[in-house]
């Protein structure tokens, strides 16, 4: 990490061009943006969209994924639709949502969810298909309720799949959110980046990127890693 910073500093001072600012310029811009409140405001707007669309697509995706994984007929019926939605370009759904529902917040969120949902469904469906039949039989034999089976038998087996969907989901969602904001919102990271692009302000672009990557890293460290550790404590 330090070597990378040193390399960056060296190359940037050597080139001496505004399109490649030095790390300390970026840090200064970052600091100023933080103090002025601009960065926290736009970052917050993006994070809020991220949380809402992530929560919606994960909970819906898990529910639908489990149902499709457990029900062959429904799965066969929806399989083609799933493939279709998996492969529609994000830009197309975003544009269509804005055209059909107007340039409003719910259209933005909806566009993100539509892009992420099929991924979650497919991942969770694979996980559900791989469930241990022996344990399900045991649960049935000992008259586990539906809730008990879900919490104690099914969910722990889906955990690696859910974590996979979470990690790839966060990465995918925030990239899509930027496009959504760029096309039709007047706040958020995407909007800001668009502005900086028009001004050729590379230092600000890098400052915002660093801030966002930092937040995602923090999330991984504070939420995801401990969650992994807690739910895998039974492994040898």
């Amino acid at each position, binding site marked *: 990490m330090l070597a990378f910073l040193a390399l960056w500093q060296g190359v940037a001072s050597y080139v001496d061009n505004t399109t490649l600012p030095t790390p300390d310029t970026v840090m200064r811009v970052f600091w100023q943006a933080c103090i002025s409140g601009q960065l926290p405001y736009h970052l917050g707007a993006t994070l809020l969209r991220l949380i809402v669309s992530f929560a919606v697509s994960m909970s819906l995706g898990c529910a639908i994924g489990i149902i499709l994984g457990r029900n062959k007929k429904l799965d066969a019926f929806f399989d083609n639709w799933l493939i279709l939605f998996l492969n529609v370009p994000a830009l197309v759904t975003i544009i269509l949502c804005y055209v059909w529902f107007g340039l409003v917040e719910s259209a933005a969120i909806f566009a993100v969810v539509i892009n992420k949902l099929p991924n979650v469904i497919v991942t969770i469906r694979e996980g559900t298909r791989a469930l241990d039949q*022996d344990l399900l*039989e*045991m649960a049935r*034999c000992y*008259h586990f309720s539906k809730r008990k089976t879900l919490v104690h038998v099914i969910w722990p087996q889906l955990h690696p799949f859910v974590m996979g969907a979470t990690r790839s989901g966060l990465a995918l969602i925030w990239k899509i959110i930027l496009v959504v904001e760029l096309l039709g919102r007047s706040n958020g990271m995407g909007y800001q980046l668009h502005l900086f692009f028009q001004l050729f302000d590379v230092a600000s672009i890098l400052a915002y990127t660093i801030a966002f990557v930092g937040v995602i890293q923090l999330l991984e460290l504070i939420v995801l890693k401990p969650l992994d550790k807690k739910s895998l404590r039974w492994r040898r």
Partner: protein
Amino acid sequence: MTDIQISITNKSYWGHSAPVIGNLKLSLKSGEFVCLLGQSGCGKTTLLNCLAGLDTAYTGDIMLGSQHTKPKIGYIFQNPRLLPWRTVRENIELVLDQRQSPDIIDILLDAMQLTEVQHFYPERLSLGMSRRIAIIRAFAVNPDILLMDEPFVSLDAPTARQVRELLLKLWQERPHTVLFVTHDLREAISLADRLVFLSASPMRVVSEIDVPIARNGRHNEMLIEGFRSQLKDNYPDIKTLL
């Protein structure tokens, strides 16, 4: 009480024309201890799955007790089938219904000498220990019917004997109908009221033989060995199973 009437005319697996079970008739009196003996792969596990309601794709009838009440079934599978992400104690707690007191867990853990591992995860246990936990789990539900699929395989001899004795003790304290699958004839003689010999493909009953040894004489190796050789002489048609 819970007597069992089995009459399966045909059970085959999808895609296989040859039936696994063909015309099998068997009835158990309430509280009876019956051992099923047969070559491995002859369909004994399939029969237990049908009884447990896990497999319903057969033609025929299975009556468990009276029609009004659903009997509680304890099923000890061939492999322990513990939830690896729950501790030993949680695994047992999960099968109890809300009205049941968890005291039974302590009593059974103590009887099996497994109290000290109750907060371990199953992956840390030996197979023998996991088997004993699975046995505890089946007893904990206070079953009306107990299905056991070779539960003592891979237990070392002293442990197996100890668990067998515990099984008999629990069965005598609170009688329930037991169907016990094994291919160890000596074990079957030491446990059962009645031996049922099964043939392979399709599985059906070859002969049913009552064990005439009194309960208090069952740990006498001589009596068991004597009965075993007597079986060999008197029943030539089950010779391959002995």
